[in-house]
């Protein structure tokens, strides 16, 4: 039996990403392929699929076949349940855990400036995207949250390093400390605020760009006087 075909069969049979050592374990000790051979064959297999509706990719948990994103308009019709949309609270909390792990709930709240509800944490734990990896040795011994391998697998990542780069936080030293007097003198200060605050975004306007869009609109108005 050809090595490539065996790997292909196993990768399709597995319900999860398959690690290199699992792939080696498919063979009797005497017949195990060298890691280099295995690696080369997997790359070759991935190339074989380059024009197929499936792709063979490497994520944190190992190698897996998946249906390409281009097909989701059709494939998603197979599933009655629509994939969950996550609230901003869930996504922001996930982002903070991903970039700042291990982190306590208190620290997350500190960054978000608002309480993090139990249901948000629950959602992330239930999805197995985050887990408690320890407890901080401070009063109350709060849990320390970190992302899981499943999180990486789910978001098609091999490691945390592949996360989008976090926006840089400008060095405050470079900020010109303005004259204390200047600010109150700001001409805007005298103008009463008249900008209508009617939301321009429809409900569900947690839409990513809403804030920017609003800003643009408002800028165009003479409201700022």
């Amino acid at each position, binding site marked *: 039996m050809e090595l490539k075909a065996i790997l292909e069969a196993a990768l399709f049979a597995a319900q999860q990403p398959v690690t290199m050592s699992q792939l080696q374990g498919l063979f009797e000790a005497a017949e195990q392929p060298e890691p280099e051979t295995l690696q080369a064959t997997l790359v070759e297999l991935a190339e074989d699929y380059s024009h197929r509706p499936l792709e063979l990719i490497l994520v944190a948990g190992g190698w*897996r076949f998946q249906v390409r994103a281009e*097909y989701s308009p059709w494939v998603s019709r197979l599933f009655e349940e629509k994939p969950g949309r996550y609230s901003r609270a869930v996504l922001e909390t996930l982002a903070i855990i991903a970039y700042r792990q291990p982190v306590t709930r208190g620290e997350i709240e500190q*960054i978000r400036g*608002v309480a993090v509800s139990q249901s948000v944490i629950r959602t992330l734990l239930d999805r197995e995207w985050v887990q408690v990896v320890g407890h901080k040795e401070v009063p109350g011994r709060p849990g320390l949250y970190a992302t899981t391998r499943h999180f990486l697998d789910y978001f098609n990542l091999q490691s945390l390093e592949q996360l989008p780069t976090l926006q840089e936080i400008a060095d405050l030293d470079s*900020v010109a400390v303005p004259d204390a007097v200047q600010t*109150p003198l*700001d001409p805007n200060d005298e103008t009463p605020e008249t900008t209508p*605050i009617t*939301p321009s975004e429809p409900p569900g306007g947690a839409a990513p760009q809403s804030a920017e869009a609003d800003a643009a609109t408002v800028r165009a108005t003479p409201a700022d006087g």
Partner: protein
Amino acid sequence: MDVEQPNTGAAPYAMVRGAPLTELPADLYIPPDALEVFLETFEGPLDLLLYLIKRQNIDILDIPMAVVTRQYIDYIGMMGAMRMELAAEYLLMAAYLAEIKSRLLLPRPAEAEAEEEDPRAALIRRLQEYEAFKQAALDIDALPRMERDVFEVNADTHRIVVRKVYPELDLADAIQAFRDVLKRMDQRSHHQIMREPLSVRERMSSILQRINAGEVLAFTGLFNHQEGRHGAVVAMLAMLELAKEGLIEIVQNEVLGQVEVRPRAA
């Protein structure tokens, strides 16, 4: 259409520039539902502040505290006027902004200025940090995700024959376990267990097995000449034991006929 006004005799909506705000600005119309939606789109005071800043295209590093503070407090005031449940964090932020503003207004000696941090620094840092994570949340949401963008492949595997892998067992461990059983047993039973040689028990099993497979055994067929005297004794004991336990019948259908061994009828 005017927003319903609360009784002005009591608490003002908010303190704006030191004066109680008891009336909403006349040109400020907010449909009640809209405000609710509006508030829900904010993830907290930092988010609201960021919105106010971005809306005016102000550099986050150079926030005009007075403007932002006033706008912020106006919003809080209006939300209060709408009798909306407002998270404590929003009120806390209002107080914090007011504090920064007042510190900026205080004249500071020149020598102190160099050392003293801009009172806005901490706020700016928090806003920047929050903004970074707000963006990161969007970035993560945009990553190709299982179940939404890409799909796990499923191939049926029920034709795959899975070998069963059993634990290994050392005979010594089983014997050790048996010793423990013997130790636990009361002494009388112990004796009963002790009495029979294993060869007899083994022979009992094999006779039963043959009978249950449907064989009618001739009594004489139970003895194997090659086993010699010892074997014959074992066979005899096994048969007697089986008969005694009511597991077999030894029958002779006719006088001088063949003696047969068969399972005992129920």
